[in-house]
């Protein structure tokens, strides 16, 4: 499916292509008995990048992270970190810090002792350790909690301590395994920002595993979308959102309307409606899936042309939901049969066009926003 020509080849990536690889993953396989958790995964990560592995549960993102950490070695393939082949090095010989969803703070040690755990026993003088611990606690904004036990802190505070502990020994790579999943929604949004800030300040190459697309979109420099053990797409958050290369990515990131159709004589049709799209590489008669995001559907007052304009579709509002900042409309059209089209209209548009349940209007499916994927991909 990656071989499919993407509709956005012409678009330049928003960040310059990686020249200086810090981490290279080459043809990684992980096989459990008869099940392949990773299938030939290759990836390059630049120094200082913030990468998110995003995908549904069981897609292999955590498996990939644990292989990088040396906690569960891959079955085949190579991993290079900073030019060094670490493929078969035990975890203790690799260079990374890690934060888990469970925080994994040592409950019987104080916050300061937790943070100092990796520093002690390394020949550093005591005074230096104390200074470094204070520095780290300052960095994560909890300088006054040094003598507390983890159970005396809130979840968000515990996770910040775990973060401080993981960066204490200045690792070259920071691995975050669903670090925010156990937290309340509000704390999560707040910590997202803090982790990102911290990462920028330290410039440490970071990989975060998450199943939360919002988290990935808001934090990552680049997102690696995974499914069934393969990488579906790698790109910046906007690339991933605006130009998904596969139907899975389009579906998984954000919301998408999906309409089954066929590609005939150089165009995709929905009933009698001809859609102008920018899709190269389709063959005549091929079954396709048309995808468009709810917020990309533009409302217009009902038209009266005998022949509808291309990409313009007459619809009726069958149901509406108030979302606070916008309205979500379920649109029905004779051209689409039973499948309703879901669209998000701004408050303004709804007021201007005086829309309510039962209203008739025309919606535009802008050519540059319509995505077409070969069916079955």
């Amino acid at each position: 499916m990656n071989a499919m020509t993407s509709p956005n080849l012409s678009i330049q990536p928003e960040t310059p292509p990686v020249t200086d690889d810090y981490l290279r993953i080459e043809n990684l396989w992980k096989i459990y008995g008869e099940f392949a958790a990773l299938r030939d995964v290759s990836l390059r990560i630049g120094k200082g990048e913030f990468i998110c592995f995003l995908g549904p549960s069981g897609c292999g993102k955590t498996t990939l992270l644990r292989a990088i950490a040396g906690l569960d070695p891959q079955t085949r393939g190579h991993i290079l970190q900073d030019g060094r082949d670490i493929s078969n090095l035990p975890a203790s010989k690799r260079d990374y810090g890690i934060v888990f969803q469970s925080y994994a703070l040592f409950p019987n040690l104080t916050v300061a002792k937790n943070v100092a755990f990796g520093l002690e026993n390394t020949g550093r003088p005591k005074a230096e350790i104390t200074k470094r611990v204070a520095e780290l606690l300052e960095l994560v904004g909890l300088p006054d909690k040094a003598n507390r036990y983890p159970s005396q802190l809130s979840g968000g505070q515990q996770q910040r301590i775990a973060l401080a502990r993981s960066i204490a020994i200045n690792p070259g790579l920071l691995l975050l395994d669903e670090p925010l999943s156990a937290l309340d929604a509000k704390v999560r949004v707040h910590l997202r920002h803090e982790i990102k800030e911290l990462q920028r300040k330290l410039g440490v190459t970071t990989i975060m595993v998450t199943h939360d697309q919002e988290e990935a979109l808001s934090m990552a420099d680049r997102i690696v979308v995974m499914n069934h053990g393969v990488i579906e797409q790698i790109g910046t958050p906007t690339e991933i959102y605006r130009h998904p290369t596969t139907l899975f990515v389009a579906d998984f990131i954000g919301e998408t309307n999906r309409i089954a159709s066929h590609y005939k004589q150089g165009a995709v049709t929905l009933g009698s409606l001809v859609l102008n799209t920018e899709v190269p590489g389709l063959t005549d008669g091929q079954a396709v899936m048309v995808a468009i995001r709810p917020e990309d559907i533009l409302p217009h007052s009902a038209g009266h042309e005998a022949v509808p304009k291309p990409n313009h579709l007459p619809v009726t509002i069958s149901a509406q939901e108030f979302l606070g900042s916008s309205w979500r409309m379920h649109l029905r059209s004779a051209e689409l049969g039973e499948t309703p089209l879901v669209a998000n209209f701004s408050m303004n548009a709804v007021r201007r066009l005086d829309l309510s349940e039962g209203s008739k209007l025309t919606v535009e499916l802008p050519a540059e926003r319509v995505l077409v994927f070969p069916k079955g991909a």
Partner: protein
Amino acid sequence: MSAADWILPGRDVTLKIDRDGLIKRGFMLVIALYLIVALALPLYTMLSKSFVTYGFDLARYEFQVSDETGGNFGPPTTAAALNATLSRFGPDDLRTSSEGRLSVIELFPNFSFRSPVKYRMRALDGASWLVGLDLVKAADWQEYDSNTFRRINLRPSTTVGMQNYTAYFSNPALFRSIENSLFIALVSTVLTVSFAFGFAYAISRSCMRFKGAMKLIAMMPILVPSLLPGIALVYLFGNQGLLKDLLMGHSIYGPLGIVIGSVFFTFPHALIIISTALAIADQRQYEAADALRASRWRIFWTVTIPGARYGLISAAFVTFTLVITDFGLPKVIGGQYSVLAIDIYKQVIGQQNFEMGAVVSVILLIPAVLAFVIDRQVQKKQVSQLSARSVPYEPKPNPGFDVLCLGWCGLVAGFILLMIGTCQLAALVNFWPYDMSLSLKNFAFDKMDGGGWSAYWNSIQLAALTAVIGTVVVFTGAYMVEKLDGSYFARGLFQFLAMLPMAVPGMVLGLAYIFFFNNPVNPLNVIYGTMAILVVSTVTHFYTVGHLTALTALKQIDPEFESVATSMRQPFWRLFGRVTVPICMPAILDIMIYLFVNAMTTVSAVVFIYSSQTALASIAVLNMDDAGDIAPAAAMGMMIFYTNVAARLLHMALSHGLLRRTQAWRVR
């Protein structure tokens, strides 16, 4: 290897082993080796011995006799032929033990050691004979003069087969032991589980008073050897018993005494299991049942019993195994009533027939292993019924019911106190029941057979060593099983070895130790007869419960601790020492006290392998009782009780103090 072989060419990636990995593997190997040497190999030796019989195979020996000149040898004749013409030995005479000897001159009625006649002999198929003390194994003719021939003894040859078993099953007296053992175990199990369930139900479902005191009293039988209730019963219902008339002519010596004593000493074991099962009740289920207007009776059968059924089954199996493998009680109060455990003792100590002892051991292993396997299956089915959201059950006061519960618990507690109180009194009076004035003369153990005070100090030493060494071995082993990544096979094997002791009765283990460690060929022979073998045997015998306690504690620790410590390039032992052990301290102390108390009270695991230098208090109770010194036996039993109470108190104080320091983090 993995499926990757046919999906992908090449070899699977394996990580290099770092120092941590080496140390961990080393530790696991050491402890696995311990279990193999202290458990698997002795059991294997015993099992194979049970199939071995010793006998003089006369058909394998051939003789030639010369004339009076010492030359002109006659035709070769087999010893079997000689025996046949003489009708000297019957088949029973030819059966023997591993140490048996048969003098050859018995087959030559005309033999005279002064005669010049010479003898030639040879042995076929590896049979052997002794010339004086020298072993000869020769298939070609050896010539001896009469004077030497006099000193020749045949050695038995071994046969491997089922003979021992057929002999066992064709002996009706031995066979009856099986029926007796099963009968005693079944009756005791039904009684103990019912009583314990009633007790646990009263504690968890009523608002009766004195719950704390009742629980404390109910646990007391754990602190005494199983011989002690036997002694108490002798004093209460024996020939000179105070309450003898209550039995209306029935004798306490026999099944009645064994069952009452068994109920006494298994009660706390069953109670712990059933209490745990009842304690995990969810208040909301009862509220739902109330809302549906179910009667108390219906609630009992539809909510309480199903919730506790796994606990009940588990308690039944534990009780059954304890009773059928117990040796002390039938020894003291069993009279002529034979049971399997006594048979082993008689065969080994009484008749020195180790092979037959092994046969009875194997037979005793069957119900024990069966009970163990079924119990494990049931345990696996028992999914945690208490979710984090459950609301613990809180009983509401109900005066009538509460008094009823208190009455029942009081009755049980009274029985336990009566038994221990009787022993206490018997230990302190001059001459029961004629001179009931108090004296300490029964504590003058040095004047009795059985080991004296040194036996008591030996016991303290054994218990302390078992507690310390055992805890280290058990906890380290459990840690390796739980936290060592890698080979599932090695971990599975280790886990199996760790669970095995639960299914092996103490006497069976002891007998296996005789076979294994008392073999001069075994380099470990040096520990035979020392304190070391007692420690090894006791640690091994009580391994499983400690292992399970440690595993439960370890499973509650976040599995990512190891990953985090590794990522910080810290060695595992630093995490182990600074985090894992402190967090598990309560469990570690529990394992320690468990091992200590059991080492003080055990008889069966050590009765075959103690020596005169390493006599133990529990053994002294047995031997003094055997010698008729019942009052000193009771006194020694009470010494064990006092020691265990003191150990418990120390454990409590220690836990309290240590926990305050190491578990400060538990306080929010």
